[in-house]
């Protein structure tokens, strides 16, 4: 019985070590691309700060990887999720969207914020600082509503 347990643990270790060698994507870019939303509109500093703290990990070309993301299979899952989120909305490429798509996205952003759906609750478990306060919500909401109505 003890032997079985030992072999199981060794087997598990081998798998865990093995998957660390799976190649990964790194969602990081040097500098800020021209298409970043801050160059599309005059985004006030306080708005930018909230976006960077609460949204950029998932919706930009620059993810701040936490320590545990160096470990598989966490990283594999993160890569997949980041691809999906960026397809939905990517603040680093906002400038390349058509006017129509920009407006759709701004409409979606205010909806998600007003209904407290973003950032995802599962993310907030590990990222206390990304939680939107009432003031943060108002800052984002006012900003996006204003440029949307221009």
């Amino acid at each position: 019985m003890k032997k079985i347990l030992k072999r199981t643990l060794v087997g598990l270790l081998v798998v865990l070590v093995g998957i660390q060698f799976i190649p990964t994507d790194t969602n990081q870019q040097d500098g800020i691309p021209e298409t970043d939303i801050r160059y599309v509109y005059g985004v006030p500093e306080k708005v930018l700060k909230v976006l960077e703290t609460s949204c950029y990990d998932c919706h930009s070309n620059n993810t701040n990887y936490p320590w545990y993301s160096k470990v598989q299979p966490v990283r594999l899952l993160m890569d997949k999720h980041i691809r999906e989120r960026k397809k939905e909305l990517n603040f680093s490429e906002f400038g390349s969207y058509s006017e129509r798509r920009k407006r759709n996205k701004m409409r979606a952003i205010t909806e998600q914020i007003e209904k407290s759906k973003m950032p995802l609750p599962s993310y907030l478990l590990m990222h206390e600082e990304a939680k939107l306060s009432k003031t943060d919500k108002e800052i984002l909401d006012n900003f996006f509503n204003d440029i949307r109505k221009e």
Partner: protein
Amino acid sequence: MNIKRISVFSLAVSGSLFLASCGNSSNTENHNDMSHEHHEGMEHDHGSHQDSESNERSVSSNSGELKGDLTSIMSSYFSLNESLVKDNASSAAKSSENLVEALKVFKAEGLTEEAQNEVSEIQESAIENAEHIAANSDNIEHQREHLVSLSIDIKDLIAIIGTTQKLYEDYCPMANNNEGAIWISQTKEINNPYMGSNMPTCGKVKRVIE
């Protein structure tokens, strides 16, 4: 040996699945308390900017001649709306799948380059919106959010391509979190896809499209 291997793998796999499940759990939360949140949280000036959005774009108006055949796009769009009027999210998703297909194959004819670019952008946007509706067969609230943008796409598409059918642009000020939203209908009477059975007749005809 085999059994052990299997158990090791299943451990690793179930671990991964556990981690994978954390990403997408939020879709259906917050349904019931959203109206409260809205009232308590944000102060908007609803009166002044009601539907400026849907008017802001000057779409090159159709000059009488049809620039393409919108029949299958419109019929999927209408059946999508009928499903939402009945609060039926899964049949809305099915209609929206058809709508995605119809949008993908649509080709406009005889347009200026500028108008053709506009049509391509509308198609791209409408496809994205319709795909969301198709993918959210369990989340009618999210389907209705995307219907707001989709209906603007459809309206703008009709303005460029033209229609032989008499259509109505309807407007409900309470839809879309009290921001107001439009939709296109074949009938004069109001059947509101945003409010569903709560308030099926909220809204009015804003414009007749002929």
